[in-house]
């Protein structure tokens, strides 16, 4: 399967510049449904699912490759090459903020601007650095994921794979936006919450916008400010939105902050 099918890539809108939206841990490209359409007038909007999520090709899930964020960043680069993108805007939510940072460092020229929504360079506390979580809490999360199968069952899997756009499956697809193979969900949680990209941040040279929510337990304001300090010249906007998903809870605020930046 090619990159487009593998990552369930959708390209919409018109414009000479591209804007690539990357979803975080939890759901899929649907996370951008209230934000991405706003940019279709001026941008070539690129949406995709990370391998293992949404309508991606689950058979392409390689546990070794995806045991680091770098593996996910390689996919972003491949998508960029396939679509011949240059100087594009990368918009990454949650863990995809760091995936975008890595992709921009690995493939200079691919992204001209970064929008990091709720970024965190490291989730686990480390000495003076406050990530917000202890190792024990993350271990607990991995176990907890076993308890929530999100309606996933082996019998359903074949109809889920690659069929996210088929409305006739709608009735059966409760929770489908966030449906993930539990093993993959666990692996993605592990790579997300044990990642440490603090050393990469100072190398970022493209203009960067950080969108920070209030009362975000996944990526606190402190964590966002750390990213802001480490990426020189970056801009940080603290949204009125609360929680970790302003792209869903406060799309208008997100859109206007982004419009001012791009």
């Amino acid at each position: 399967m090619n990159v487009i099918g593998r990552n369930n890539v959708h390209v919409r809108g018109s414009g000479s510049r591209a804007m690539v939206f990357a979803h975080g841990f939890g759901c899929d490209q649907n996370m951008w449904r209230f934000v991405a359409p706003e940019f279709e007038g001026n941008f070539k909007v690129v949406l995709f699912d990370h391998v293992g999520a949404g309508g991606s090709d689950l058979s392409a899930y390689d546990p070794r490759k995806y045991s680091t964020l770098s593996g996910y960043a390689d996919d972003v680069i491949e998508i960029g090459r396939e679509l011949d993108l240059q100087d594009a805007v990368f918009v990454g939510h949650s863990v995809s903020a760091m995936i975008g940072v890595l992709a921009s460092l690995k493939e200079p020229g691919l992204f001209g601007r970064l929008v990091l929504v709720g970024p965190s360079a490291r989730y686990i506390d480390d000495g003076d650095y406050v990530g917000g979580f202890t190792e024990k809490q993350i271990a607990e999360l991995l176990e907890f994921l076993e308890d929530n199968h999100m309606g996933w069952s082996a019998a359903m899997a074949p109809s889920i794979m690659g069929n996210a756009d088929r409305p006739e499956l709608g009735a059966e697809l409760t929770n489908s936006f966030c449906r993930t193979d539990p093993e993959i969900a666990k692996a993605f949680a592990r790579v997300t919450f044990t990642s440490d990209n603090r050393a990469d941040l100072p190398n970022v040279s493209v203009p960067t916008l950080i969108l920070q929510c209030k009362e975000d337990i996944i990526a606190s304001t402190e964590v966002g400010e750390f990213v802001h300090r480490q990426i020189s010249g970056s801009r940080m906007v603290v949204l009125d939105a609360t929680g970790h998903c302003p792209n869903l809870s406060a799309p208008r605020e997100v859109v206007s902050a982004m419009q001012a930046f791009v």
Partner: protein
Amino acid sequence: MNDQNPIATEDLEDLFENAPCGYVTLDAAGRISRVNATLCTWTGYSHGHFAGKRLHLFLNMAGRIYYETHIAPLLRMQGFFDEFALDLVTESGDRLAVIANASEKRTPDGALVSTRVAMIRATDRRRYERELVDAREVATTSLKSERENSELREQFIAVLGHDLRNPLASISAGARILQRSGFLQEEKELRVLDMLNSTVTRMSGLIDNVLDFARGRLGGGITLSRDANRPLEPVLEQVVDELRTVSSDRSIETNFAITEPVNCDRARIGQLVSNLIGNAMTHGAAYHPVQVGAKTEGGVFKLWVANAGEPIPAIAMERLFEPFFRGDVRSSRQGLGLGLHIASQIAQAHGGKIAVTSTSEETRFVFTMPTLP
């Protein structure tokens, strides 16, 4: 109708407060605006303690992460969620396992009014589910290690079989040189030479079986090179002759009538009949000849090997063709238990099969295959 609406007679306030499940209502900003008494009792918190707080504060940390990354987005996207397993943390710090459903209430123009969450206690269910998950993990792990072990074992067998071939070839060549040189004259010496040849033949048959078995297990399977044009009978005669030479104390009677061409791998059919005769000699009564027959009739090739002696016990019948299965025999006569297994594999590769009948009079193995499959 004089009957009163039963719903109207129900005290709805009481139904909400003391329902057999926990209720939480969140306002448009996601803050708790109301909880019922049941949830207060379960958690040990007062109504007032919940007011204005975010729901995830009452979950354990893993649940908070999950709520923020999965549940909240899902609720926003599809307007409801069903069947989430959550752990509430009670006032005393204990965990309370619940299954939660929720739905959003929106105005006609789509603005969020509130979100209602219902929680059902699920302690036993969750414990049971966790045990299932743990059991699956144990099963998966042991299956994986078992597979690795068995692959290693089969690779070992393949290497062993292969490495045994060369020294055996040297022994065989040495015996041939001795025979040709005429150096050995005494009858006793010649008997030793016969014995040597017999052992080499027997061992080479065993090694062939071992290698075929290992190849089969490692995915190679039995490979055939069929040839319908060349006669099969001389091959069978040769196998019988060899076995007669190496087991001069045993008698083998043959009855061959192959009149139609048989599209088979002749060397493989030779190996099959050799294995069947070897089995008959090991298990059959020594005083009685082994009967070997082959014929073609109406497009079917049929080959049989029969011996007298004790019948095969019913319990052994079922496992006869399994690898490494050995019946009750004197240890000196034991082989690896691969002969019948390989014979049946060869039969299957030819689209045929081996049937067995065993009575106190006779034990008979019959191989049949289509002459032109």
